[in-house]
Structures are given as C-alpha cells and as structure tokens.
C-alpha cells in the first residue's frame, strides 16, 4: 500500500480576543492510497480544522499551525511548500467538498465553467476543451441533461444536484485525496443515500482516497474502512470499521453509539444522553478531556491525560480504563449501538 498522507502531531490554535483556542491538540494519522477514512466527532472537536490544515486553508492570523506539526504528502511536508507547490497540490492532488453546497459554489458563474476552471489551471486546457470535459464530469456524477445543465447557474440546481456539482469540481483533476466535510448534513436522507453511493462508486472507479468528516456514525458505517473518533481536539479512539462498531473501547464512542436510536431496533428503550457539553478549549482540562461527562470517571482522569492503549494492530483508545489497575468495565453497547 502506498502511503499518501501522514499527519504527525498536528496542533492548530486560533487567537481570539478571549484567548488562544487550542482547536487541534496533537493529532496524528495516516492515509493510504485508495483508502477511506472517517473522522467522527461533534461540533468543535477539531475535525474540520484538521481537514482545513491538510488543504492549507487555515487563515493566519487568527489561525496558527503550531511548531512541530507535520503534514507529509507523499513524503513531503506541505507546511514548507512554496506558493507554486501549493498551487500544484491544491485542487490537483487534494481537493475538498464542503457541507453547504449553496455557499461554496460561485453564484455568478455557470456550473460548467466552475468545473472547467480547475482543468484550465491545472491541465492547461483551452476553455472549450475544459468545458467539454466538464460536461463529461457532470455525466459521471449522474446529472441528467449534463450539456444544458453545464450552462446553468447554481441557483437553478437543487441541493442534491449542487452537491453533485461540487463533487464534479473536486474530482475534475482526478485528485489523489478527496476531503468531504459533512457532505450530506444539509441534505435529505434519500439524497444523502444517493450521494454516499456516488462517492463509493467513484472511489471504486477512480481509486481516490477519501477523508470523510461527519458527526453521524451511521453515515460512515457503509463507506469507511478506518475511523477516527475525535473529542476536544484529540483522537480518543481509532480503528477499522469492525473494531469501532463491534468492539468500541472508549466511553465517548460508547456514548455516541448509544445516543442515536436504531431504526431496526424492536424495543422502545430510553436514549442514553451524554450529560453536559464539551470543554472550553481556551483552557483545556489537564487530564482526560471527556472526564467531566464520563460516567466511568476515576480520580486519575481529572489529573493525568490518559495513555493510548493498543487493543490490536489497528485499534487504539486513549482511556484510563485500559490501565491494568483500573476496574474492569463491560462494554455497555452491543453490536453497532444495539442496547
């Protein structure tokens, strides 16, 4: 397997009037060719900031990528890229689709031209060639009447079609990595299923690696091979899909799985909610960030950050419960969140 991306000890802060918000606090992971990785967590856990850092979209100031952070793309640290290298990298090697397809498309430009734009820049195509290619891209993402649709403006597209157009733009130059930041959150369930299916199909066809960012574990069960669960700027658990859904090892992952009712469950059980809210990242807690909301909290959790325990070759969790002196706790969730 070819290693495409390696993020090492990524730390990102935002300087605000209230103080320094430590959005991402030491995140490391790798992505291989053709792999799909899901980053799961609630708002403010740092998942979007992580993806923006990979795209080089952190605005400085107020943002700051801390010293010692490394993002290696095919072995080269992108944080040391020259302007020219950035241009080559962004759009052609790595591209991104955003949550809200309405605000991320240019309302004054024809959709076809927005797709053609990157082909003209990165591939040096003429406008005419690029437009032809753009129509092909629209066909690939299953937009009917692609030819006439390419000459329309974003407001003439529905939400699902706009997201398809976004995917077409992102994939126009056949990038090695596609970052999808909550691509289906703004869409209806039936359209969500269509978009996830489309992404799966395109991945198979083009061999693109995907980083999928979401707060909904259900969405990724079908598509992700590897998962990362983030909380308060840190990775609390990582593993492949089977491990995370069938043998989760961190109380936060348990809570995430139990907070959503399952459609196929027969019982009408009470939902188990996570009390409280995530910690303030201006002054992050000194111990485990989840301790204040965790029902298994021990004294040490408030004082010392938990060590990362290896459960298998691919499965890791950062929790004191895995310490040899900790009381043994049975996993309170069944397979895939069945209570």
């Amino acid at each position, binding site marked *: 397997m070819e290693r495409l991306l390696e993020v090492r000890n990524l730390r990102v802060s935002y300087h605000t009037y209230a103080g320094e918000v430590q959005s991402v606090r030491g995140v490391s992971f790798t992505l291989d060719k053709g792999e799909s990785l899901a980053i799961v967590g*609630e*708002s403010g856990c740092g998942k979007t900031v992580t993806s923006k850092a990979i795209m080089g979209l952190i605005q400085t100031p107020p943002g700051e990528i801390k010293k010692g952070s490394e993002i290696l793309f095919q072995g080269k640290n992108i944080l040391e890229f020259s302007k020219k290298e950035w241009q080559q990298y962004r759009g052609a090697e790595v591209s991104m689709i955003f949550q809200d397809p309405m605000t991320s498309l240019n309302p004054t430009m024809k959709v076809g031209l927005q797709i053609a734009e990157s082909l003209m820049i990165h591939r040096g195509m003429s406008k005419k060639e690029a437009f032809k290619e753009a129509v092909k891209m629209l066909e690939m993402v299953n937009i*009917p009447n692609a030819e006439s649709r390419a000459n329309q403006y974003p407001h003439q597209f*529905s*939400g*699902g*079609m706009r997201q398809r157009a976004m995917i077409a733009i992102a994939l126009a130059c056949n990038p090695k990595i596609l970052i999808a930041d909550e691509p289906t959150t703004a869409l*209806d*369930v*039936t*359209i*969500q*299923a*269509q978009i*996830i*299916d489309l992404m799966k199909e395109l991945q198979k066809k083009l061999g693109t690696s995907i980083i999928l960012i979401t*707060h*909904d*574990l*259900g*969405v990724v*069960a*079908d598509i992700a091979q590897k998962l990362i669960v983030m909380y308060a700027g840190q990775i609390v658990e990582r593993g492949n*899909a*089977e491990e995370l*859904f069938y043998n989760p090892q961190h109380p936060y992952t348990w*809570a*995430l*799985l139990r*907070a*959503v*009712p*399952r*459609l*196929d469950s*027969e019982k*009408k059980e*009470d*939902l*188990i*909610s*996570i*009390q409280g*809210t995530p910690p303030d990242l201006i002054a992050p807690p000194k111990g485990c960030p989840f301790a204040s909301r965790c029902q298994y909290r021990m004294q040490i959790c408030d004082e010392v950050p938990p060590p990362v325990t290896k459960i298998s070759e691919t499965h890791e969790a950062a929790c004191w419960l895995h310490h040899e002196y900790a009381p043994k706790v049975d996993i309170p969730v069944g*397979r*895939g*969140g069945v209570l």
Partner: protein
Amino acid sequence: MSEVRITEQKGQVSDEVLVEVKNLKKYFRVGKNAILKAVDDLNLYIRKGETLGMVGESGCGKTTAGRTILGIYSPTDGEVLFEGKNVHKLSGREKKEYTKEAQIIFQDPYASLNPRMTVGDIIAEGIDIHGIYTGKERLERVYELLRMVGLNKEHANRFPHEFSGGQRQRIGIARALAVEPKFIVCDEPISALDVSIQAQIVNMLIKFQRELGLTYLFIAHDLAMVKHISDRVAVMYLGVNVELAESFELYKNPLHPYTQALLSAIPIPDPEVEKKRQRIMLEGEVPSPINPPVGCRFKARCKHAKPICGELNPQLKEVSPGHYVACHLY
C-alpha cells in the same frame, strides 16, 4: 405516593381526540399562474397525550402543516379542530386562549430567540401577554422553568448569544412550557443539534410529556428519532399524507413505496447490516410543489406506477386497523 399516581395517569394516551385536521389545504400564490400547493388535503387526528410524528423530505409541507394547525397561517380550505372547535374561526378572545393552549418549538435555536431580549424576558413573554403572573411570581415561574429545562436562575439575565445550540433549544422549550399549553408543535427541534445533545433534548421532551400530560406533533426528517419518540407516524410527500400508522407497525411493515424507500435510505451504524441491506434507491428528487402533477404525486419516482396513478389521486385508505395508506396498490 399520590403524586406518582397522577403523573402515571397523565402520561397515558387517552381515546379523546385533541386535534383533528380535516381536508386541510394551504396554497401560496407564487407568481401569475403559479400556485404552490404546500399542503393539499391533509387528514389526521391527534389523541390527547399522544405524540404524532410527521416525516418527509424538505419541501413536503411538514412545517406549513404545523403552522396552519397552530393558526399562524390561515388555511386555503379545510379545517383544524382543537377540542372540537375550529381554530381558524375563533373569536378574538378565544383565539388568544388558543395561543396559550397550543405552542411551538422551532427548528433553528439561533434564529428563533430575539437577540435583544434577556432569556428571562423571552421565557416570560407569553406569561406577560396572557397576564398569568406578575412581579415576584413571574420571576419565580421563570426560575422554575429554567430549572425544569436544566438551566439555572443566573441564566435569566443573560442574552441568547451567550448560549450554545443545545442550551438555546432548552430556552425555546422553557418558553413553550411557560404558558402551560396542552399541545406543542415541535418543528424539527433537534435537526440543528449535535448527536450527543439531540438525545438530551428528546429525553427532556419525553419526560415533560409524561409529567405534564402534553400532546405533541413532532415534525422531523430523522426517521429513527421520530420512531423513537412517536406513538403514530404520518409520512408526507409533496403536501399529501401518504401513509399513517402506529410507529412500530410503520417501520416493520411500510406499505407505500415512498415510505419503503425513505426507510431504506436511513443509515444504520452497523457495517455488516449495511453491507447486506438492499437499498431502494429513489431516482431524482422531489418534484416542485408548484402546480404539482395530477394523480399520485409520487408516480414519477415510483417503480410500481400504473396508468391509473396518472389519472386518479389515491385517497387515504385503512388497510389494516390503524394503518392508513394512499396508494393505488392497496
């Protein structure tokens, strides 16, 4: 002991119908010859103490239905009966009384709280309008409401922007409960919230229903959550109620092709189940509700479509006890 007994009694669904919607239509004129039929011939009833879930994709008329039931919109045709009285034909005083008995919790906790008012004043606005409490009692009631929704009395003097989405939704709930309503329309109360916060809000709504004997119309597009909270569920498509059944019955035995597709589109957090599942993929998207097609609204996306579907609008039929469906297949 006696208190416990009372709450148990209150939590039960009675046979008494609280809200009845008959042939409700709400059209909007959107252009010279264009009529947007947001709600077209809606029929349903809600029993006292019951939660009726209402699901469907964006633009299917769920919110318009909820608002027309509350009397915020006046209907184009049809009627809404609350305790037997047509809510759109009430006299001035009765109408004011109805706004006390029926309340709403909005979807967007950011847009639905006035940024210039303190939380205390937001919650007490209904109390002031109806003159329920004044002075010290009013303040006590605000504190009590804040405590009920898991906030504390120091929050009364703050402004909405100081709160997170989940906390704002709690303020919205406190505002709805302030006038002691019987019936609350919950218009997508959890869609804008994080997964971990959604469960807190849903559990709170269930708890208040049991304790205060409330009746809910729960509008949402998250079918798993609707199944969890509702006694019965109505599925809407392009302004029409296509299926209505007890929630477990609907999920176990969906009859309308649209309901089947909608259910199969919902992801389940279980990789093995997901891999084995057969998805019914819907082609295309919801057509425009402006000048909708004659006949069945769903026919363009339905794989069972027959000639009759293009001619005749299917009516809601009871196919098994309590299970209604509007489809020519049955």
